[in-house]
């Protein structure tokens, strides 16, 4: 097992370096550079000023040398310095990470829990009106553009009903502490987490339902029935556990997107997370910062792929040996 994990980590490191290299060239292919953007913000600049900035940022060196310097830093776990924010990239990312994780993890847990639950319920009542209702709702959520659902939620719950705050992470300047702050953040969290979770809930529901139905056709379920087991036990012990395998895979995939998958939601709800950081870094051609965000989100994907595989080995005995 340890050997397996080490192998996978080694592989992940190679993929990460490759991704960074690819993205490095991609980003440098974009028009403009951070010096020009910052000069633009200054409202006036001459060639000397821009040249100064470029020298300061090391952008005057040949591209391959820049790549070498960057990768050397990454290998030493140094993600470099943000040009625009004048801060180490790692600090910036870690500042934003909690907000993103709070949002995505809560959406993830809600959607996984409710989605599977709904899927199990629907599969147990297949063909009945409650199944039709759940399935139709899931399809509806599945087809709804996330950002639009978010806007409509803001319109309804924030603008018209005024129940929940529609923007931001916490009440700005309120300076709550302790429990009051947690409550405040919690209130801000509801709408974004719900809209983000809605889509995945639909995905999990559909997958769980389909998987439950498929597994319930398998021979061992018939064996279980032949034993005289109660349907509820068959459902739980035989069908559900086997039906969860593909859901685990999907959950692993989604968990990998926890860092980078919420750009839209963060934009609509002005949630100060990694997604927005990426968008800002992109607009400002803040190369190091953008690569840093990619690094962290890709690392997250790889990490969760690994976690999923390990989890799979725990859940499915067949893989442990093969």
């Amino acid at each position, binding site marked *: 097992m340890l050997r397996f994990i080490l192998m996978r980590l080694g592989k992940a490191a190679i*993929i990460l370096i*490759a*991704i960074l290299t*690819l*993205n490095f060239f*991609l*980003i440098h*292919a*974009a*028009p403009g550079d951070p010096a020009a953007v910052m000069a633009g913000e200054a409202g006036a600049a001459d060639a000397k000023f821009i040249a100064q900035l470029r020298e300061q940022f090391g952008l005057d060196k040949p591209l391959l040398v820049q790549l070498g310097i960057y990768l050397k830093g990454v290998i030493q776990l140094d993600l470099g310095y943000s040009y625009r924010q004048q801060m180490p990239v790692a600090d910036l990312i870690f500042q934003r990470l909690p907000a993103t994780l709070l949002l995505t993890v809560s959406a993830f847990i809600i959607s996984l829990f409710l989605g599977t639950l709904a899927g199990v319920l629907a599969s147990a009542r*297949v*063909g009945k009106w409650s199944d039709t209702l759940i399935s139709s709702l899931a*399809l*509806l959520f*599945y*087809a*709804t*553009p*996330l*950002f*639009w659902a978010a*806007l*409509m939620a*803001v*319109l309804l719950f924030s*603008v018209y009903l005024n129940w929940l705050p529609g923007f931001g992470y916490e009440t700005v300047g309120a300076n709550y502490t302790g429990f009051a702050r947690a409550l405040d953040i919690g209130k801000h969290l509801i709408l974004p987490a719900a809209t983000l979770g809605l889509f995945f809930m639909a995905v999990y529901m559909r997958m769980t339902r*389909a998987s439950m*139905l*498929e597994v319930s*056709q398998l021979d061992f379920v018939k064996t279980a029935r032949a034993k005289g087991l109660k349907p509820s036990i068959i459902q739980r012990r035989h069908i559900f556990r086997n039906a969860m395998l593909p859901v685990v895979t999907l959950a692993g995939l989604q968990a*990998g*997107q926890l*860092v*980078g*998958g919420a*750009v*839209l939601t963060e*934009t*609509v709800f002005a949630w100060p997370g990694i*997604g927005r950081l*990426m*968008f800002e870094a*992109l*607009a400002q051609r803040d190369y190091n910062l*953008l690569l840093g*965000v*990619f690094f962290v*989100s*890709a690392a997250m*994907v*790889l990490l969760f792929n690994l976690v999923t595989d390990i989890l799979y080995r725990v859940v499915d005995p067949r893989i442990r040996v093969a």
Partner: protein
Amino acid sequence: MADFWKRFSRNRGAVIGVAILVVVLVVAILAPLLLPQSPWRMVQRPFLPPFSMDQYPLGTDALGRDVLSGLAYGAQVSLLVGLVSTLAALLIGIPMGALAGYFGGWVDDALMRFTEFFQTVPSFALAIVLVAIFQPSIYSIIAAIAIVSWPPVARLVRGEVLSLRSREYVEAAILSGQSNLTIILRQVLPNTISPIIVLASLMVATAILLESALSFMGLGDPNMMSWGYMIGAARTVIRQAWWLSFFPGVAILLTVLALNLIGEGLNDALNPRLARRGK
């Protein structure tokens, strides 16, 4: 074929889906006839609420442009982007998956590592970066959507080809002296068509969602009136004018819903072994 239609039409959802899609298609095609004025034309006072003037039943936007006309022309863009980008993704994904699955070994390894690459970067983030880097235009948007959506195609085709590869009729074709290319094109790929069609119908839906999300982020083609653009432009005025974001959202929702229903219907009709119970 008749059998296919029979099975397809047995799925009530799929029939509804086709009906909706046909309406959207007709609107998209006939938009220039029904609403000859450019959707960009400022025709009335800004922020005219819906249902207040017969001529502009869905009201006007921040510049006094007709929302209904925007919806009609937006259908063109959404469908165009959805179809073309899906096609492009298929053109990348099918050969990739076919080669990987058919030849196996290091070819498979190399191609699948390459595919993994694209799946490791969150796809929407990658799409944003691609469009931003190559500057928003209909071409860069289609390219970006295709680039982020081909990996599932490659994986699906690879899986199918891998299982078909060891089918006896493929081995028979090898024995009968057919070339690899002939075998891939004539024996293998035609039998992967059903799942590809199903996946493709869902991909069109996803592509429409992606396009609208990109437009919403301000990364749409500025010369094309698209639904995502309309919602994005309406976001800042959502408090003054709910209808500006509401109607295009409903349009996207219905179209995507229709495509998903059709996809399910196709799945039931083309892959009977996976058909849902309870029919």
